[in-house]
């Protein structure tokens, strides 16, 4: 499976960043091989629309799931429409730990009531 994780640094030892749209790094990880590609989040400082831009990036990279601490309503809408699942990391952990939890089905999926 290919997942994208919001991160504070550019490798698997970095911590998961709690904020999907405003994190400094995205790590695209193949959960089987643990091959990891790091990308700077170009939208981190955007005045607005960071969520939609990052969600669009996730779709362009054709990930199966997003792993993060918090995903806002606009990003959620884009990811949901694109068929990408969102898994929430409940507390501070490294990217590597989060991926292990994901593989063991220990992470909860995010559901949001959109008005």
């Amino acid at each position, binding site marked *: 499976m290919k997942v994208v994780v919001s991160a504070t640094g550019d490798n698997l030892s970095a911590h998961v960043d709690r904020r999907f749209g405003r994190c400094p790094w995205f790590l695209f990880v193949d959960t089987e091989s643990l091959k990891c590609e790091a990308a700077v989040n170009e939208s981190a400082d955007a*005045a*607005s629309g960071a969520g939609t831009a990052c969600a*669009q990036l996730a779709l362009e990279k054709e990930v199966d799931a997003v792993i993060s601490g918090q995903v806002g309503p606009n990003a959620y809408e884009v990811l949901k429409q*694109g068929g990408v699942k969102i898994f929430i990391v409940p507390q501070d952990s490294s990217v590597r730990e989060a991926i292990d939890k994901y593989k063991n089905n220990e992470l909860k999926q995010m559901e949001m009531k959109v008005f």
Partner: protein
Amino acid sequence: MIISVASGKGGTGKTTIATSLALSWGEVQFLDCDVEEPNAHIFLKPHINERISVGIPVPEVDESKCNLCGKCAEVCEFNAIVVIKKKVLFFPELCHGCGGCSYICPENAIKEVDRAIGVIEKGRSGKIRFIHGILNVGEPMAPPLIRQVKKHINNSINGIIDASPGTSCPVVEAVNGSDFCLLVTEPTPFGLNDLKLAVEMLRKLTIPCGVVINCADIGDEEVERYCKDEDIPILMTIPWDRRIAEAYSKGIPLIDALPEFQNSLSQLYGKIERLYKR
């Protein structure tokens, strides 16, 4: 002459000064550009005779013509339009109405439609021609409505623009183009901090300014010192007086409740005129 009234810090007395200045000024137009929370009408009590709905242009995609090429999403500066595998998603609250997406669409699949953001009300209060904008609750962007309110300015009569607190986009939109800006402040650290930001903003816009210090006899002397150092004229000072707050709370303009201020308010106009003509 068009005078804008701003402050930086909120709650310093912009509307108090702006409304009483208008009442002492005779034939004048008053534009309340604090469209998120207009309150001048509470004091001027205008009779409203015109109500105009205001909208901004937003894209509407014709899915039968759209080939999902994604050019609209590429050109959108605000990430308001997103193209995914099978459809185009649009986020109206992020859209600034620039028209870029409909312009760039190679299939002509996007047309611009109006999305209502608020209303403009016009009326009269004695000699005052009154205009204000009311932004719909939940709307994130004030400047497009402020821009429309200002389109109603009549350049052949004097005018007062009441801005919102702060120093960012809505205030810039309100004060831009005015001949002079009156900054209402208070002699406190917060007052001074935000006054400096307001002055910086006005300097970038090259709008001359002067200061009114409200509650001038309490607090410290730093605002006065700053104005002297920066060569910013202090045009009026108002002492702290419970009666002013009481009148305000009842929707009574300063000039009606405390007529002793009539002189200094009329003089204020003269001082601004001399500074503007300098």
